[in-house]
């Protein structure tokens, strides 16, 4: 198992550009999550998905979009990049819902994004 994979590892964007951060998991997990981690801060949930075709907003969804057409993939789209989106982005997955308190999340290695 590769676990949770993310691409790219690093990216520099200009203001106004768009890009898609890729995330894939091969553990047949139902739940997938996108977080951002700003320097000196904890992780904040951007979007999550409870299964293919179902997504919902987290704490900080503005400026992002997601889709979940398959169980394996959960891409995060930035349409008009802004300097405030400079951050490290982590994708995670879990088999069960965290509200069950019986499962944990598996994290990808992260994508470091800089918007200039």
């Amino acid at each position, binding site marked *: 198992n590769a676990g*949770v994979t993310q691409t790219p590892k690093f990216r520099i964007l200009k203001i106004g550009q768009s890009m898609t951060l890729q995330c894939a998991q091969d553990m047949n997990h139902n*739940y997938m*999550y996108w*977080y951002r981690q700003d320097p*000196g*801060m*904890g*992780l*904040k*949930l951007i979007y*999550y998905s*409870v299964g293919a075709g179902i997504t*919902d907003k*987290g*704490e900080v969804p503005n400026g992002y979009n997601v889709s979940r057409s398959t169980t394996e993939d959960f891409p995060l789209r930035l349409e008009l990049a802004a300097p405030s989106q400079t951050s490290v982005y*982590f994708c*995670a997955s879990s088999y069960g*819902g*965290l*509200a069950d*308190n019986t499962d*944990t*999340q*598996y*994290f*990808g*290695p*992260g994508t470091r994004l800089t918007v200039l």
Partner: protein
Amino acid sequence: SQELEQSPQSLIVQEGKNLTINCTSSKTLYGLYWYKQKYGEGLIFLMMLQKGGEEKSHEKITAKLDEKKQQSSLHITASQPSHAGIYLCGAPYLSGTYKYIFGTGTRLKVLA
């Protein structure tokens, strides 16, 4: 909104020393997770606590959840350079939802 505060924010200890990291919630916790993040990498799950008064250990790391379920501590015994990294606590935002919050993290450095 529910928040998780961690203390201290950073910690430098000599190898072999014991240390404790705290995670305090503004509301009752319905579960508390501890993670370790190595610099520049993703998070690695350490352990999960659910019940008030629960204590779990893995190798030299022990985590406890207090009876009131609003504070957890992570204790490392006889620290080693391999323990260095950022420790984060995380918790479901509210019982019955799939949202999740994290503490701001504690950066640990262990001097050899």
